[in-house]
């Protein structure tokens, strides 16, 4: 069990604010940390890792990592950390990157097997693709069998197909090592697939905390579908108006009444939802 109660003044994009987080995280859980950029997600991970100092307390399985007197340095926390930019050691081969953490050939071999990297173990990071580099980084993070695995937007630089594959590998590693995992993510489907708890930060405060279904599904009441998107354009066609909305990677058209058309502004975030209808799912 991890108990976090920390405060830290931040100078974010929106001026000064206080990161103020009080959380208890169950052992073995997979927590997705979400929120606008500059809301303090990365800072929270760095404080947990001991890379940034803050005021407050951190207890992990009853062991004190941080309070008024104690500050356990990052070297002693046995944390696995996966950076968005991989942060591999360019002067070491894939296998050496892993063995640098711990000289445990058996564990390194097991991890490389799990992530299908065995035949690349002698290659250097510069010759690998982004997805392969992030896998190496993931394996390296698991090398000290961490109690706590922290990932800062690990998949955001990868293409969707690679993301899906790596999500599966992250999930398998999390389960087989029984670690507690905290992952910063912006991707609702990723959070839904992996996490059993989603925490949303805004301006340094927790604004939502619960199971993924409750936090991520945007429908309310009798709504069946609800999508958030950006209003790109409003086009007048005879007597009706048509709004062009960008949702995810797709554009959709929605019919508007003239009253609605006047109340909306191009560039706004809007929510498109519909009630009773039977959708057809095809692939």
């Amino acid at each position, binding site marked *: 069990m991890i108990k976090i109660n920390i405060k830290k003044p931040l100078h974010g994009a929106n001026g000064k604010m206080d990161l103020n987080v009080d959380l208890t995280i169950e052992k073995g859980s997979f927590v997705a940390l979400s929120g606008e950029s500059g809301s303090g997600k990365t800072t929270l991970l760095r404080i947990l890792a001991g*890379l940034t100092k803050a005021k407050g307390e951190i207890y992990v399985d009853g062991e004190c990592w941080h309070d008024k007197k104690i500050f356990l340095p990052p070297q*002693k*926390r046995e944390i696995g*950390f996966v950076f968005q930019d991989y*942060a591999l*050691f360019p002067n070491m081969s894939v296998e050496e990157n892993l063995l640098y953490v711990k000289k445990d050939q058996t564990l390194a071999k097991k991890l490389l097997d799990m992530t299908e990297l065995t035949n690349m173990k002698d290659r*250097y990071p510069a010759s690998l693709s982004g997805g392969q580099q992030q896998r190496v980084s993931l394996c390296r993070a698991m090398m000290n069998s961490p109690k706590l695995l922290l990932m800062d937007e690990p998949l955001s630089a990868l293409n969707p197909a690679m993301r899906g594959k790596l999500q599966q590998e992250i999930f398998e590693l999390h389960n087989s090592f029984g670690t507690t995992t905290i992952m910063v993510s912006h991707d609702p489907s990723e959070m839904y697939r992996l996490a059993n708890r989603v925490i949303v930060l805004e301006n340094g405060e927790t604004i939502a905390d619960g199971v993924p279904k409750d936090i991520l599904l945007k429908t309310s009441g009798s709504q069946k579908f609800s999508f958030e998107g950006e209003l790109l354009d409003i086009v007048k066609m005879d007597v009706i108006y048509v709004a062009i909305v960008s949702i995810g990677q797709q554009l959709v058209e929605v019919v508007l009444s003239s009253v609605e058309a006047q109340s909306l502004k191009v560039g706004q975030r809007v929510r498109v939802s519909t009630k009773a209808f039977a959708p057809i799912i095809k692939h």
Partner: protein
Amino acid sequence: MIDIILNLEWSPFYISFKLAAITTFFLFIFSLPFAWFLANTKSKFKPVLEAVTALPIVLPPSVLGFYLLWGLSHNSALGSFLQEYFGIRLVFNFTGLVIASCIYSLPFMVQPLQSGFQSLNKNMLEASYLSGKSNFQTLLRVALPNIKPALITAIIITFAHTVGEFGVVLMIGGSILGETKVASVAIYEFVELLDYRSAHIYSAILLFLSFLVLLAVYVFNKKEKIHSIGGAL
């Protein structure tokens, strides 16, 4: 031509290169932790330390030479202390030259190393700390191998700059043949004696060697840039 080379007094060149090699060695040992500290510190004294380090670049060698001469001679507390209790004299001998050269060439070692360290991916260094590795282990096994071009530049430029020393060497070492007389001082004396032929030969040799050293640096750095896509610099 062969006659001239065979009859040449080589000792000033030998002293120059010996001085440069020893200076580079000691400077590297001392500058490595210092540059690592400067690259990572958030101390408010950092600008002061950086300014002091850069002083030898802007000071006239005569100013530096004068202070060193005064500081190391028996006129100063340090000089008289060393001479009285240890019998060590640090002016007009080779040891004094090494000390003076280390100070004179300090920025040429520290600055490339520091900027090399600063260009490293901070996350990569943090990944090493999170792997349980100390600051020193991280320096030796992660930071240093990933700043090879900066490392080579620092070593070779320091070496070349020490070979090119003149004012400080003259003031601290004088011109004792086989002890403190370096190539640049020898050229100065040939010109004073109107022996232009020897001055020409010495100068040409120094010019050629210096060019070779610099060419080596640039060729190496160009190769490194092509080879290390993910590396530093």
